[in-house]
């Protein structure tokens, strides 16, 4: 096909890295469907700028994913916030560690996109603060403060779960 000549390497890039990129997109958006949409949007951007992106195409695609995710946050600032309910984990038993982490990742999806993006970069991609700052095009200080606020919010949520949990135990006793 004609377009394969124009976008040489795109098929291979998506075949090799598409699933990993989709995983990142899912974490950035909070759902599979939204993650696919984000990845599609980033791909469209890459294709549009294909001839001007020299060298690391995957790097451009990954960076675009993060920028689009954060841009969505900017776009939604002017709209009413819709806060999702995060189900607290169940009572402690032999399987609750997995449920806890599931609830924690659910809670991650309720954070503002910039906080979410920083936490994904730091704790999923395992980037340093400087690398995360470079990816997002902001200062290291911004990454530090944003990560700190994001983690603090997650701790608040888990503390609230603990309170609910204790009340549930007391009520049961």
């Amino acid at each position, binding site marked *: 096909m004609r377009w394969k000549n124009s976008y040489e390497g795109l098929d291979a890039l998506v075949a090799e890295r*598409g699933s990993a990129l989709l995983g990142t997109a899912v974490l950035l958006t909070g759902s599979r469907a*939204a993650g696919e*949409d984000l990845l*599609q949007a980033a791909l*469209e951007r890459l294709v549009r700028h294909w001839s001007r992106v020299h060298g690391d195409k995957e790097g451009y695609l990954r960076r675009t994913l993060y920028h689009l995710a954060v841009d969505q946050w900017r776009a939604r600032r002017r709209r009413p916030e819709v806060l999702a309910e995060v189900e607290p984990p169940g009572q402690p038993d032999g399987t609750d560690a997995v449920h806890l982490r599931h609830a924690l*990742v659910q809670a991650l999806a309720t954070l503002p996109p910039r906080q979410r993006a920083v936490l994904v970069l730091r*704790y999923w991609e395992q980037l340093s603060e400087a690398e995360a700052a470079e990816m997002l095009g902001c200062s290291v200080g911004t990454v530090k403060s944003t990560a700190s606020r994001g983690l603090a919010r997650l701790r608040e949520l888990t*503390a609230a779960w603990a309170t609910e949990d204790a009340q549930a135990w007391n009520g049961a006793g």
Partner: protein
Amino acid sequence: MEWSWVMTNYIEEQLTEGMRERVAGVALTTDVVGPTVRRQQRRTTMTRTGYAVGVVGLAGALMAGVLTTGGAGPSATPGRPSAAGAESPQLRLAAAVAASQGTSYRVKNTIIPRSQPGSPSMVITGAFDPATATGYVRIAAGDAPPWYEERLVDGDLYTADIAHLRPIDQPSDRRKPAPSPDERVDWNHDPDKKYTSLSWDPKTGVVAVSADPQQLFDTLTQSGARISQTGPDTYHFEVAIPRRKGLTSGNMIGDVTVGPDHRVAKVVYRATLRLATETAVLDGTLELSDYGSPVTVERPEGTFEQLPGK
């Protein structure tokens, strides 16, 4: 250990592990490349063929006609409306075209590519003031929100691809209102460059909405035209479109209406373009208005991206 203690003291580790568990098994199973590339190709083709015969193409074609049939003459001084009593239809139309240049204007150009399946319309709206190097251009498919926009403010150019701004977390809900123009955030801007007109990436093969008139003269004197007057303020024209990269031949046939201010008010035309791989037929309606009015454009807010490698 109590889990609340774990979460407080080891939340980073739990978060990392939780993310791993969340994306385990997530695999890309749908073809995302094909649709993306096809969309881009449709967009490029439509833009290349449609926009190339848009504002400048048309103005240039008209100018070519008047130039090759006797020259512009003193009455064609830009910005100076001419008397309607010039000797020939060519000169009278030349005066109107020249009077339409060098001043601010508002423009709407609706292009329907008849040769494309479904004939999806493209609407280009804009305004430009050459004196202040300020203006904007937006391109949209039909009544949909624009998918491309340029703003020029005192010579500073901002461009935006806005196709992705569909709300990412609500991909299937088409009832939601589209993002307003203020919500566009992926603007490109090079602070080191100044522009005298709205621009268009030359790699796409299209031309600017408000290019330097001298370039039009240079380009368009190569073609001939037949112009006849069909009413007090209306002219019929048939003109060849000069060859350019990607365009082997082409012609444009249409009618021009000159307004009471002796400037071009409306042009209805059909363009036939023979490209390397296809023949495109486009019907267009170009409306020009508000000559001489101030043009005010706000600088956009948002992210100004510098592409890698630039």
